[in-house]
């Protein structure tokens, strides 16, 4: 095989995995009838597996694909980062464009000390996870990627398609095509989530870091890469340099996207090399090769990232140990957001937060687009967990899609029968704004919409019928709030289940009050 072919093989692999990952996220939509592993992307991450397990004190079997990545890394080092990771591929594309647009990039020489940041982040994440706060999903590429697609890219595309087809309606010959696209592709509710900009900005920020160095995120930020660096630092497969052929021209060193090559090109940091194979063709004398064996290039001592200083380790671990319980307590001490409604199937709030990896799969699949990423309504650590916003989209009574795609089972899978009994909140009527109550006008929209049998909203009264909520029947689906014809905030609003969030073991609303999900 010619040396150049390796590079193309790697690029093909990257492209294939990127396309597959995008296609999978896009395909994660009603009715989930294709036989696809819709939730598989985050399950490949060893970091998410470890932190979710640590936080929830349970081995989560669903994360078995992470073992494949671990095995791959034990053999080949960080091949996952160079050949598979969709974020890595996106960054490569971004770096390529940045290189074209801004010719002059800083020299690839760097201060090795900065590599420790990703390791310190990894340590902090593990410590936080041990305290029940798994924040790995904020940084992990396999959570970040589906989340960015689900909460930003796909909605942007849907919105663009929606507006474009509306324009096409004004061009008579294209009307039919526009109609067909809208029927098949454009979702029924086209909505941008409140958190879309932050999530998109975070991703754009990662790409722009490529202005400083190529693969900046992979070098200094990615905690999953840091973990894989530990796993793969002694892998048998690696870069080899034939000393007698090497002219010490440093071409390979300059071409290396992760700065793994040291000296005059003869040494390699195994923990950094992601086997992109660029150095194979960069070498004029064919001194570079990749393979198994003892003649692996000597370790590059200058970029040996896993070896952080003891002081760094102790400071980070100590600070995290101090910060984690404080944060935990602080988050639970904030005033409850009454309207925080978790998706159906959500475990008890603490366990839900421990398991949720913030990947956005539930947000992607939600039929009504009612699920949205949380900002800080669930405390600082609840960022990007899902909530239902009924005024945007209600929880469809018999729909169980979100419970089917949760990779870490933070949402337990529900059958249709279980879903009918799943209580996620409680509707409350604002009698100062409700049309029959406040204005003495006819209205039964909330009652008409209420999907339970018998209905959880009853019209009562002599003369003008007025709605009343029957708390013991309400499941909190929010269709009443969604459909309420009062302008602005609805005159009937769903409050979240307060026992979920703030009173572990307490009584009150919710499934415990009603005798559990199975009842």
């Amino acid at each position, binding site marked *: 095989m010619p040396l150049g072919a390796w590079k193309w093989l790697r690029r093909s692999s990257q492209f294939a995995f990127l396309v597959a990952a995008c296609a999978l996220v896009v395909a994660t939509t*009603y*009715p989930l009838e294709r036989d696809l592993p819709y939730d598989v992307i985050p399950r490949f991450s060893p970091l998410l597996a470890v932190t979710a397990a640590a936080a929830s004190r349970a081995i989560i079997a669903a994360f078995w694909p992470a073992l494949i990545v671990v095995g791959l890394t034990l053999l080949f080092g960080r091949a996952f980062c160079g050949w598979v990771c969709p974020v890595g591929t996106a960054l490569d594309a971004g770096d390529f464009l940045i290189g074209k647009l801004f010719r002059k990039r800083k020299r690839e020489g760097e201060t090795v000390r900065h590599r420790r940041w990703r390791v310190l982040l990894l340590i902090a994440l593990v410590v936080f996870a041990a305290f029940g706060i798994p924040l790995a999903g904020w940084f992990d590429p396999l959570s970040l990627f589906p989340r960015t697609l689900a909460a930003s890219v796909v909605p942007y595309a849907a919105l663009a398609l929606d507006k474009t087809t*509306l324009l096409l*309606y004004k061009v008579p010959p294209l009307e039919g095509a526009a*109609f067909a696209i*809208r*029927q098949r592709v454009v979702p*029924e509710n086209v909505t941008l989530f409140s958190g879309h900009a932050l999530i998109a900005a975070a991703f754009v920020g990662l790409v722009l870091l490529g202005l400083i160095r190529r693969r900046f995120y992979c070098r200094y930020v990615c905690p999953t890469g840091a973990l894989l660096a530990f796993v793969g630092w002694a892998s048998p497969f690696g870069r080899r340099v034939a000393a007698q052929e090497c002219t010490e021209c440093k071409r390979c060193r300059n071409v290396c996207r992760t700065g793994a090559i040291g000296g005059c090109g003869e040494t390699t940091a195994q923990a950094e090399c992601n086997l992109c194979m660029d150095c194979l063709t960069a070498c004029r004398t064919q001194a570079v090769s990749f393979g198994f064996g003892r003649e692996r290039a000597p370790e590059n001592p200058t970029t040996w990232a896993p070896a952080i200083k003891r002081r760094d380790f102790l400071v980070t671990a100590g600070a995290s140990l101090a910060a984690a319980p404080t944060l935990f307590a602080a988050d639970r001490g904030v005033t409850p957001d009454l309207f925080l409604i978790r998706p159906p199937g959500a475990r008890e709030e603490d366990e839900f937060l421990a398991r949720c990896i913030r990947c956005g799969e539930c947000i992607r699949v939600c*039929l*009504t687009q009612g699920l949205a990423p949380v900002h800080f309504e669930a405390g600082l650590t609840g960022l990007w967990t899902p909530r239902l916003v009924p005024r945007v989209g209600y929880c*469809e*009574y*018999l*729909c169980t899609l979100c419970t089917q795609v949760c990779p870490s089972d933070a949402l337990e899978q529900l059958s249709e029968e279980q879903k009918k009994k799943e209580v996620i909140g409680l509707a409350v009527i604002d009698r100062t704004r409700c*049309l029959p109550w406040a204005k003495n*006008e*006819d*209205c*039964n*929209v909330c*009652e*008409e*919409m*209420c*999907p*339970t*049998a*018998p*209905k959880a909203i009853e*019209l009562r009264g002599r003369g003008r*019928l007025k709605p009343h909520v029957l708390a013991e029947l309400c499941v909190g689906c929010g*269709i009443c709030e969604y*459909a*309420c*014809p009062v302008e602005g905030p609805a005159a009937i609003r769903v409050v979240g289940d307060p026992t979920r969030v703030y009173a572990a073991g307490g009584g009150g609303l919710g499934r415990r009050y009603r005798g559990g999900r199975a009842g």
Partner: protein
Amino acid sequence: MRISRREFFRNLGIAAGAAVLVGREALAAEGVAPAKTANVIVCKGTNYKALLARAFAKIGGLKKFVASGDRVLVKPNIAWDRKPEYAATTNPLVVAALVELCYGAGAREVKVYDNPCVNCRRSYASSGIADAARDAGAKVSYVDTALGKTVKIPRGVAVKSAKIYADVLANDVIVNVPIAKDHSLTGLTLGMKNLMGILVENRGRWHQQINKKLVDLAQVITPTLTVIDATRILTANGPTGGDLRYVKRLDKIIVTEDVTAADAYAATLFGLEPTDVGVVKEARRRGFGTADLARMAVSTVEV
């Protein structure tokens, strides 16, 4: 708009006729049978296609309504994400039978759609109507709420205009196929209420003075035929239902040209008087269609 105008004049005629008759009735001596102003065919049985074919034959044949080359809209109730046995949506077999009969009468194209109250993809699938209608050859599509056309209701009492799905107006014939259901605000939801499914505006706002608004709407978008599916009726917890104990199997279908008569007669299936249904009461007050059972020529078809 061709259809609307024709329908408009036809209804104007009926309304005028009804008004004259009502006036005459007041003068007429007791014991004289009032003139019949509406034909109502009540089908009973389970072979829906055969039943409907015979019912149409009784009112002059479907060809009288569907001319060769006509575009037909069969408008069922697909409002909810419910399986057919829950009687929250029109029986898919009735819809399919109608589609086939319309094609048999020479229709060029038969469309089936409704603007549901919940997610359209789920309700189209769960109701079984999308599959059944498609198998029968109908063009099934979702209502695109971006394609609205504002229609004036010059004689509207509670509403002066309505934003209608534009495609509705492009049809020559509208076959209105509601399912008979319980409803808290209108008493029952039947033929006139089913027409709300062609609106593409904020329907929540239609629920104030709903009965007046429904009669207003029916005056400009008048179905050519109303076929009330009472194969299963929803007796309580309407219009969503959700429990089989609310469902009563009647295996009846009501066929008529007069949507008011359809709604009035259907009330009797629930053991109600026509005027117990708010919208029938309103139609009667305004002389829209035939609300009096005594003025209906009711005949039965059984297979």
